[in-house]
Structure formats: structure tokens, C-alpha cells
């Protein structure tokens, strides 16, 4: 019998007042009972509108049917067929804009909690230690994957399953890309990413850290001197953007990348960490995406007294995942919407240039905005209200207004072309670049986007590489 409840089975979470003092995961995951209950809300409709919303085309109704019969291994197999990182995507996909957006149940009530079910199935699988390595006959060909973020990991997994010898090159000291340096522990525990990486290693994928391709080695060298038959570039969108307003070089102004990297990757969140970070006090995070939410909620956990999100549009346009916004509000983050920074203010003791407080942030001057005519993408353009400037007193400002692709690889690879924004030019269906046997996907191509779309590109590239090398 279908479960006709209009609401999703609630997700157990750590209470807000507790979780703002720790970095443990906020959403705790469904129990078996909850998962089965939620699965019965799925009507298993023939048209499967949800599947069309999934960037990697997971057969969603089929895996949910398996949950109904408690065949959780069967459910995992179905998801795994299409997705390389189910435990990750179940947590970080913006489901409300993807699969769940098209769910029939959503027309009258809440959609089926597809993301939550995916997470349940993946976690249940990962708890078991029987991840046996399957022997795959080698094709005797080598592929280099640059970057170990979502697109790189997906591409490596797929190629390895197809019998290629895969080496993943990572610039940082640990594999996972944005999944480890960017997304905080409380949203995506690092043990989950590690598990996925371990699974790849078991399949025979080699991971080399501290290798900056473009510097330590170039793509041309990988192919000419080291015998790699093809290369996949999944180097991500590296360079943080700043607004270009006065005061951005003051002490206490961070890019979100730096702030989150210090906390996540360099472990500043631990009590006796050797990594410095400005904590406590008042902090403004500029931007409205997932990264901004991550930075704001990290700040709370590091002990900030007051955390603001400063965003130039309204709640409706806020691009962050709905659940993250809700969690941020519950935790006490204050949203200053329709506010746009115009200047960051700093301390200056005119009488004493040696005053150690000189040059530290004291506030952020914003102007109020109103929504005007829609822009070319249909979003209403924010327009400043003249004379409405005001100052928010803060000690720290985190700029979270996006990133652009890193030019390191482009600058050192002959024949690799990029577009005006710095994204690598590819043929959409195959991810083939302008250089023979070199493929690219993820943020390095599109600029900042989602984990799942990057993963989808990694898989598509793997397929194309297989076809190319089988010629």
C-alpha cells in the first residue's frame, strides 16, 4: 500500500543548539524502517519524470522498488550502475532542482525523499566490509586523470571498470578535491569520501598526491614520456573571485576557498591545530551559494558570536541547496538579503602607524537593493537604492561569490583551447577537448557547478576515452 502522507518522512538531525558546537554531521540518516516507509510514498509511475531530472540518469523508481522489498543490495546495484559516488551525492546533490523537482508527489505535497533514500542505500552498503575487488581483464592501456574531485573520481572508476590502468594526479596532499577541501565535515564526513577513494584503490586505481600537473609534470610529458594513452582533465574551478571593492586586502578578508581550506583540509577546526584562522567575533559571508552556507556554518562552529549572510538578491533567488539554507537559519545565521557590499572598512590609528590593530577589518559597508527587471536568465536584477548605505560591524569577511577555472593547465599544454571565461572547450557529448586524446569535464569546463554534473561528465568522458582507445 502506498504511503499517502503529504510530507517526507522526517530526517533525524542533531539539534541546532548542540550541533553549532561540533563538526559532526548534521543530518543523521534514515533507519531501515524510515527508508522503507519513505519508499512506499513512491507511486512507481510509468513516466518516471524523476529520472529525467537526474544528471546521470539513475533508474530511481527501480531502486526505490527494491527498498520496498528490503532488497537493499539490489537497490545499491541499480544506483551504482549510473552513479560512482552515491553516498556523496545523496548528501550534496540539490535534489529539489533535479530528480525531486519532477516527482509527481511534489504536485500535491512534498516529493519523495529521493536523496535521502539514495544516501540510506549507499551508507548501508558502505557499512558492510565485503567490498570485494572484482578482477577485470586489463586492456593494457594507461589513462591519466588530473584532479581527484568528483569528475576525476567518477572518470577513474569507470575507466578502471573497463580495464584501463588509471593513475589519478592530485595537487593537494589528499584525494577528494572539493569534497575534502571545500565541503565541511558536518555536511559530508571525510570518512565517506575516503571510503570512496579506498574503493577506487581496491579496484587498482593509483592515486599520486602532491602532483601539480602543469608544474611538476605537464600533460605533454605524461603522454610522450610516461606512455599515457589518454588524459582526463578534471582540475576544477580554482581561482577565487573578489568583488573589486575597496578594502578587500585588509586582514580578516578571506576567499571562501581559503577559509574553508584552512578549516577543513588544514584542520584549523581542531582545538590544538597548528593552522591559524580568524575565529570568534562577528563575521559576514558575502554570497548565497552552498559554499557561502558552508562558510557561514563553519564560522558558527569555530565560535563566532554573530554570522551574517550578505546577499544582493532575495531569498527566492538564493542558489544554495534548500536544506542547507534551512539548517543555517535554524543554527542562527542571520540573512541580510538585498544587501550588496560596497566597501570593507579597516582600523587605522592615525597617530600610531605601529598599532597592531591597524589594517584589520572593522566592518562592511553595504547598500540596500531592490529587485528590478528580469535579466537574460530570467532572474530579477538587483538595483541599488540610492543613499541607503549602512555599516555592519564585523571582524571577518568571507567572499563567496564564485570561482573561475585555473589557468595552470591551459598555460602549459600545447593545443588545449579555452573559452573567454577560461573554461576548457569540449565537445559536449564526449568531453573531447581540442587536443587529441585529451578530455575534460567538471568545473574546469563549466565553471562552478554541482558535484553530480561533474560526475556525469567524468563518466561520459570515460566512455568516450574507451571508444577512442578501442578504435
Amino acid at each position, binding site marked *: 500500500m502506498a504511503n499517502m502522507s503529504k510530507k517526507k518522512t522526517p530526517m533525524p538531525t542533531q539539534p541546532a543548539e548542540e550541533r553549532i558546537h561540533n563538526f559532526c554531521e548534521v543530518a543523521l540518516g534514515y533507519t531501515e524502517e524510515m527508508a522503507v516507509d519513505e519508499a512506499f510514498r513512491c507511486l512507481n509511475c510509468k513516466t518516471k519524470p524523476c529520472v529525467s531530472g537526474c544528471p546521470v540518469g539513475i533508474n530511481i523508481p527501480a531502486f526505490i522498488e527494491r527498498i520496498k522489498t528490503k532488497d537493499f543490495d539490489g537497490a545499491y546495484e541499480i544506483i551504482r550502475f549510473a552513479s560512482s559516488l552515491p553516498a556523496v551525492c545523496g548528501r550534496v546533490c540539490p535534489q529539489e532542482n533535479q530528480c525531486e523537482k519532477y516527482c509527481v508527489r511534489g504536485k500535491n505535497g512534498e516529493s519523495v525523499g529521493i536523496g535521502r533514500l539514495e544516501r540510506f542505500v549507499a551508507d548501508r552498503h558502505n557499512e558492510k566490509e565485503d567490498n570485494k575487488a572484482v578482477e577485470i581483464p586489463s586492456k593494457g592501456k594507461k589513462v591519466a586523470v588530473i584532479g581527484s574531485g568528483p569528475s576525476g573520481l567518477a572518470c577513474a572508476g569507470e575507466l578502471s571498470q573497463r580495464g584501463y590502468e588509471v*593513475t589519478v594526479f592530485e*595537487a*593537494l*596532499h589528499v584525494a577528494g578535491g572539493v569534497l575534502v*577541501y571545500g565541503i565541511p565535515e558536518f555536511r559530508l564526513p571525510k570518512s565517506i569520501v575516503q571510503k570512496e577513494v579506498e574503493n577506487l584503490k581496491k579496484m587498482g586505481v*593509483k592515486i*599520486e*598526491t*602532491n*602532483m*601539480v600537473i602543469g*608544474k*611538476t*609534470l605537464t600533460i605533454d610529458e605524461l603522454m610522450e*614520456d*610516461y*606512455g599515457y594513452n589518454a588524459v582526463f582533465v578534471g582540475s576544477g574551478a*580554482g*581561482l*577565487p573571485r*573578489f568583488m*573589486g571593492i575597496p578594502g*578587500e*586586502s585588509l*586582514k*580578516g578578508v*578571506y*576567499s571562501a*576557498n*581559503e577559509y574553508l*581550506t*584552512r578549516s577543513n*583540509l*588544514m*584542520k*584549523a577546526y*581542531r582545538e590544538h*591545530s*597548528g*593552522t*591559524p584562522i580568524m575565529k570568534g567575533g562577528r563575521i559576514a559571508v558575502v554570497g548565497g551559494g552552498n559554499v557561502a552556507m558552508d562558510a557561514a556554518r563553519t564560522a558558527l562552529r569555530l565560535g563566532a558570536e554573530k554570522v551574517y549572510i550578505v546577499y544582493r538578491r532575495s531569498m527566492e533567488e538564493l542558489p544554495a541547496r534548500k536544506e542547507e539554507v534551512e539548517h543555517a537559519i535554524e543554527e542562527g545565521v542571520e540573512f541580510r538579503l538585498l544587501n550588496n557590499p560596497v566597501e570593507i572598512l579597516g582600523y587605522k590609528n592615525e597617530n600610531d602607524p605601529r598599532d*597592531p590593530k*591597524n*589594517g584589520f577589518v572593522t566592518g562592511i559597508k553595504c547598500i540596500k537593493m531592490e529587485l528590478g527587471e528580469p535579466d537574460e536568465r530570467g532572474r530579477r536584477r538587483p538595483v541599488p537604492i540610492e543613499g541607503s548605505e549602512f555599516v555592519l560591524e564585523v571582524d571577518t569577511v568571507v567572499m563567496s561569490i564564485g570561482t573561475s577555472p*585555473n*589557468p*595552470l593547465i591551459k598555460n602549459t599544454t600545447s593545443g588545449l583551447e579555452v573559452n573567454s571565461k577560461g573554461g576548457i572547450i569540449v565537445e559536449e557529448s564526449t568531453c573531447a577537448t581540442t587536443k587529441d586524446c585529451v578530455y575534460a569535464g567538471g568545473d574546469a569546463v563549466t565553471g562552478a557547478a554541482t558535484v553530480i554534473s561533474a560526475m556525469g561528465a567524468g563518466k561520459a568522458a570515460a566512455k568516450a576515452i574507451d571508444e577512442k582507445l578501442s578504435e
Partner: protein
Amino acid sequence: MDICTEMKSNMYKIVNKKVLNPTVMLMDIEAPFVARKAQPGQFIILRVDEERGERIPLTISGYDREKGTVRIIFQIVGGTTKALSMKDEGEYIADFCGPLGEATKTDGLKKVLIVGGGVGCAIALPVAQKLHADGAEVVSVIGFRNKDLLILEDEFEAASDRLFVMTDDGSAGEKGNVCAPLKKMFADGEVFDEVIAIGPLVMMKFVVEETKPTGIPCTVSMNPIMIDGTGMCGGCRLTLNRDGKRVTKFACVDGPDFNGYEVDFDEAMSRSRMYSDFERHEYEDSCNLFREVK
């Protein structure tokens, strides 16, 4: 060639360690991939061990492509450099990544003035050596607070056509700062193709001011706070005054060398002190001597 066997599963061994003065130490680290590509002016990023999470940049002060080792010379200024200094020959460090940044441009230079200050001399040396080997005339000025802090004098002697050693108190070489010999040479009308200054920010600022009236190009090497070294964090940003505009650059990918006439030194100095409180506490906490005094 197989990369994975060559990498020896990412182990970076300290094959040589030498104390140059009470706060400055030299280490040769086994890192064949870095050694193969390293150029004067480039830097590496290291992490001492798993527990200490911090990644720090250090400029390369030498390399042996055959042995596959890279030389770093560092001053003990904070928790991480302190921890590094405690490691012994034969031990390993967790991570060693590079070579990063752009190499110092030396092509076509026939006569160069190299100015090194303090531990910055360790970075200036390979530049002097490269120019010397390429047949350029090299005049070096190296400055220190006192005799005890003097490093690399013999090496500079060997790589320079003329060498001036300066100390603040006159305990070695001549008394005075590095600008004194510059003043004299410029007053005597001596001309160089380029002045390359590497050292504390305040020293570089004064070298730039001293050189400016001569119109000789002046390159400085910036060594700001940095995390990834690949352009990702933006923590190393600095401001250039270029054609009346303020331009933001990242030292890790656009530098570390910059046109000294464009750099906003006051801002860079302010930014370099962002964590000075934290570092002082870290350093003092790590040292029993300080702890007992407190």
C-alpha cells in the same frame, strides 16, 4: 617509465640537515620530480606531518637533479617551521609539492645587482649562481643583523664578481644596511641591467626606493602567506599599482617575482602580520624554555 614506482609512494626523506645559525636551517629533501623541474625563484609547499595540518611555502634554494634532492633553507618563525627543524636526517616529512610559481627571469641579463637580506639570501643565491654560470657579471650585496646570523658568505663569494657583506652592527663585513653600497655604486654612475632584491619586505621596499631614480628595472621576490600554491585560495594576493590602476595578483601563480616599482609594500607588510599573534603563541607554547619563563 612508471611514475608510481618512481614516486616511492610519496615519501620525502631528509637526506641532509645543517644548522646555519641559531634560527636558520638547511635541509636537502628527496623529491625527484621537484628536483627535475626546479628553477631559481620557484618555491615548494610542504607539510611536516599528518598531525600538524598547516601547509607552508618555502622558496627553493638549490637542487640536485641527479640525486633528486631539493634544498630548502628556512628560518624558525612559527609552529610549523619549529616542527620541521626538529626532524632529523633520515626522517621523512609528509608532503613536498612543487616546483610552483614562475622562475626568475634571467635571460639576456649581462650585468646584475643581487641584493639579499637575512634568510632571503638563501633564495637569492641560486639566482646569483645561475646568472654567474650564464656568464653575466654579478655584483652581490648581502645583509644581516649581525655576525651570528651571517649565512652563505662563501657561496656568494664564489658566485659573484664583487661581494658586499653588510651587518647592522658591523660585527661582520661593513656596518650599515644593504642600501649603503647601492647608494655609492649609483652615485658613481654604475649601471646594471637589473636589480634583483630578495629579503624582508621592508628591505625590498628601501632597495626599490634607492633604485628608482636610476631607472634600472628592479625585481622583488614576494613570499606572502599561502596555502595551496596553485591559485586556489587567494590568500597570497597582493596589490600592484599599474598605470594608475590597482591590480590584484596572486603571488603563487603570477609571481613570486614582481616589478618592485609596482608593489604596494605597505599593504603587503600589513598582510604579512595577519597571524603574528597566533604564531608567537604557537612558537612559545612549543618551547619549554618560553613556557618556564611565562
